[in-house]
């Protein structure tokens, strides 16, 4: 479809092809200081409001501002949007926006053959080319011939557009990301209003900046409209999604919302004891903004204080949380043992990142599973659950809180940096759709015994302020029923087994394992946590090709769903893609006498569905 375009003032017309696409993936990439995260987030918000399904993946360096132009200083933001339901930020991208040579160099490999490259030619000077380790200018040496290159002098066009604003050249150049955004809005036929409004809100206090960014955005859009370079405009129709109100959320936002919602539905005050650490910090940040919910955040001096303040708050009758990532999780180990011994509710969120040690702090990984399930001194069982997508983090946090309260136990929720920073549209639940998770406090002071047990082996909760229920708890082994310190040998065996049984019994209280695809088949691809979207996409593709494949995604890692062993035994082959060296596979082997194949990826970045598909095909071919 070709149309002729006329600008507002009728200055110029050109012929534009209008192409409708089902699916688009764009990667914005530039220097850490180029504002690519903002550009990506704005494109995302607008796209969400247009009604596409979408999935995003921000990917930034661990330096705050790496020296400009360097390869390690490249910051990226990927968005995948579609007119059908999607689960991943996309394997490869259709369009790469490269604000400098380094951004081009780092990202080119993942661009589809024939894909679009939008480059800021102003930045392709000798210095930047050298910093990006280019021998010659790729825009000139024909090395990009298999792509569609759109060379745009973005910086100078922005500066031109802002002439007369009275800003310095340097300040004008700062708006160049909005120029690029405007251009992309034109290319993908999105409205500018959401971003224009956002600019006003965000920079309201600084009218010059509002003006500059507004002008730059409009200039970018007009440029697309007017220049001959662009002859195609793409459109992606709204997806057919369940009706309702939506919102775009990152995993960390959703986790924070889930925590507060759990407090509201439990009728308890909320408390977070935490210490900042990438990529978990945003949860603390989100919660610290929610003071009107009465939610208290305590930024502690370290992770140990983070978890211990939460234990104190829990003892005091709050629904208490602590959030961290791998190294901080390690530091909390001892205190989690205390929480399980005193049997107080507590939710520990581990937003996993690349390890070991400091590792790759800004990159996702799934390598804390062993630590979560098995990494404590003594016999120390703790329920472990994992969220599977950014929006699912809400339900993960909520469910963790439910279990913690009902079973008077610490619960670990595993997410990861990929979920934490990635985003997707979320169909918002109504208040009434969320279950009441309140648990009654002890009620009869005469009969109160701190370590009595109910039918699901949970002990009664009585908190300071309740007259007649005064009692003492602690980390020493305690006597059954009374909770007094006990060194009695048989009591110890009994209590060790009791704690194990209590946690194992949660298997009766969680959903049975479900399967996407046939219940019996050649291959089951088993996943947990953030690999959900990539595995699901791969399985959809395999199924579309007629392969006998199912997806089994495990949300409850300890205890496993009751039927899991049985479910898995119905497949000829089992494949576990994991962002570690095979930790879930190890647990499955130990629990169920199965022998799954591990597909391991430990590269600080998520699987692509393609990688999973290929491995699945390899296995299917051996059958």
């Amino acid at each position, binding site marked *: 479809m070709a149309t002729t375009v006329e600008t507002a003032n009728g200055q110029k017309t050109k012929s534009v092809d209008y192409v409708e696409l089902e699916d688009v993936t764009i990667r914005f990439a530039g220097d850490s200081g180029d504002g690519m995260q903002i550009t990506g987030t704005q494109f995302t918000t607008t796209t969400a409001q247009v009604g596409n399904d979408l999935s995003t993946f921000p990917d930034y360096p661990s330096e705050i501002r790496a020296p400009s132009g360097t390869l390690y200083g490249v910051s990226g933001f990927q968005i995948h949007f579609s007119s059908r339901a999607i689960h991943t930020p996309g394997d490869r991208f259709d369009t790469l926006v490269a604000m400098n040579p380094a951004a081009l160099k780092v990202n080119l490999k993942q661009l589809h053959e024939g894909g679009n490259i939008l480059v800021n030619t102003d930045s392709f000077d000798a210095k930047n080319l050298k910093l990006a380790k280019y021998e010659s200018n790729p825009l000139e040496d024909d090395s990009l011939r298999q792509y569609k290159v759109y060379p745009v002098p973005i910086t100078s066009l922005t500066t031109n557009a802002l002439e007369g604003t009275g800003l310095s050249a340097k300040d004008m150049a700062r708006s160049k990301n909005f120029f690029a955004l405007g251009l992309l809005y034109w290319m993908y036929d999105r409205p500018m209003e959401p971003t224009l409004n956002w600019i006003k809100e965000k920079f309201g206090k600084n009218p010059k900046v509002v003006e500059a960014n507004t002008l730059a955005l409009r200039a970018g859009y007009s440029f697309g409209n007017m220049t001959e370079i662009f002859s195609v405009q793409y459109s992606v129709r709204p997806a057919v999604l369940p009706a309702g109100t*939506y919102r775009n959320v990152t995993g960390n936002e959703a986790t924070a919302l889930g925590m507060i919602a759990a407090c509201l539905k439990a009728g308890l005050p909320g*408390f977070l004891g935490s210490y900042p650490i990438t990529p978990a910090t945003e949860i603390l940040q989100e919660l610290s903004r929610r*003071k009107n*919910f009465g939610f208290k955040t305590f930024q502690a001096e370290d992770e140990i204080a983070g978890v*211990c303040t939460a234990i*104190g*708050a829990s003892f005091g009758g709050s629904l208490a949380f602590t959030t961290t990532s791998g190294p901080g999780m390690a530091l909390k180990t001892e205190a989690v043992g205390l929480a399980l011994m005193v049997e107080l509710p507590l939710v520990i969120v581990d937003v996993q990142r690349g390890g070991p040690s400091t590792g790759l702090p800004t990159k996702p990984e799934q390598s804390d599973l062993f630590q979560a399930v098995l990494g404590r001194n003594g016999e120390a069982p703790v329920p472990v659950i994992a969220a599977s997508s950014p929006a699912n983090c809400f339900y993960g946090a909520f469910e963790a809180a439910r279990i913690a309260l009902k079973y008077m136990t610490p619960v670990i929720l595993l997410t990861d940096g990929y979920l934490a920073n990635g985003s997707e549209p979320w169909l918002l639940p109504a208040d009434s759709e969320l279950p009441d998770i309140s648990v009654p406090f002890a009620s009869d002071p005469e009969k109160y015994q701190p370590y009595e047990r109910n039918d699901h082996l949970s002990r009664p909760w009585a908190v300071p302020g309740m007259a007649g229920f005064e009692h003492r708890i602690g980390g020493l082994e305690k006597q059954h029923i009374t909770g007094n*310190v006990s060194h009695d040998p048989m009591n110890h065996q009994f209590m060790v087994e009791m704690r194990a049984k209590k946690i194992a019994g949660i298997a009766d209280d969680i959903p049975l394992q479900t399967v996407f695809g046939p219940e019996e088949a050649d291959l089951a691809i088993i996943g947990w946590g953030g690999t959900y979207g990539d595995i699901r996409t791969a399985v959809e593709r395999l199924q579309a090709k007629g392969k006998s494949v199912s997806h089994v995604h495990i949300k409850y890692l300890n205890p496993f769903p009751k039927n899991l062993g049985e479910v898995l035994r119905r497949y000829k082959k089992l494949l576990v893609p994991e962002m570690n060296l095979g930790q879930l596979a190890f647990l499955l082997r130990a629990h169920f006498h199965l022998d799954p194949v591990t597909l391991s990826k430990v590269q600080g970045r998520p699987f692509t569905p393609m990688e999973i598909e290929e491995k699945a095909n390899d296995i299917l071919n051996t059958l």
Partner: protein
Amino acid sequence: MSNEETPTVVKDQVKVLTAKDLASDQDVRWCPGCGDYSMLSQLQRALPEVGVQKENIAVIAGIGCSSRFPYYMDTYGLHGIHGRALAIASGLKTAHPHLTVWVATGDGDCLSIGGNHFIHTLRRNVDINVMMFNNRIYALTKGQYSPTSQHGQKTKTSPTGVIDHPFNPVLIALGAEGTFVARSMDRDPKHLKETMIAMYRHKGTAFIDVLQNCVIFNDGAFDLYTNKETRDDNVVYLEHGKPLVFGKNRDKGLRLDGFRTQVVSLSEYSENDLIIHDSKSKELAFILAHMNDQPGYPLPIGIFLDIERTTYEEELEEHIARAKEKEGEGTVESLLFDGQTWEIPGT
């Protein structure tokens, strides 16, 4: 989320507590003669005097001989893990500001493994009463040196003498911006009880360094200060507004000589020349704190500093109240349907 931190329970008539009401049913398991007994009975006496109800008292401890304290109090109690009592107590008090929170901790628990929580609690000024049982030894683990063990002291892990320079608990508490810093001793139960009452009355973290005799692993460590023969010449009691006089015959005093204290005889100087204790002065507190096991100087016992500063939990409550006023009390709807949302219509 409920506004009430405390679940509502029908309370009995408020009844007058006695020390006995505060004793739990557990056998006290300290060694006969241990200084910890004195602390326990003084707290059991002090609390009824200030008139708090026992359901509103929580006693938190770490690990150590002294940290068994909560088991012996018929109040809410948590015997935590080594060094973390103050972090646990900070969370409890912040979450539940109506409680009276006491912490029982040892010189190892508080100043060694727990040192970080100690200094941060003090600067935050969470309203917690911290009783440090300072026996200058790790007693529960049977006699290793602690951060307050004296230089040269022979213990199981310092057979050739301690080479670490000890902390002066009062000094480090002051350096960490503590608002109430005191010292007392197991052998002076009256002073102990009075100081406990003052701690209770102080808003913010109240810290007391209690010289406590461990009869098994460091017996007699404080003999100089507790022994009838020597104590009057080696201890000076700090009383706000009173001159610093001491000595068996109250014949000695402390005056200021430049930046530091000087011991003078009252035959040469008059009381008017002496330092008048001012527990509101940080500077004086530091100057006095330096007299710590210093030969020729008496050891100050009493309240070094007692000043006001808003507490952590007060400020937090205030921020919350302000937010609620401004944004309205949060609900599930206001939580979720916030920011940029959009509708997908039904088909």
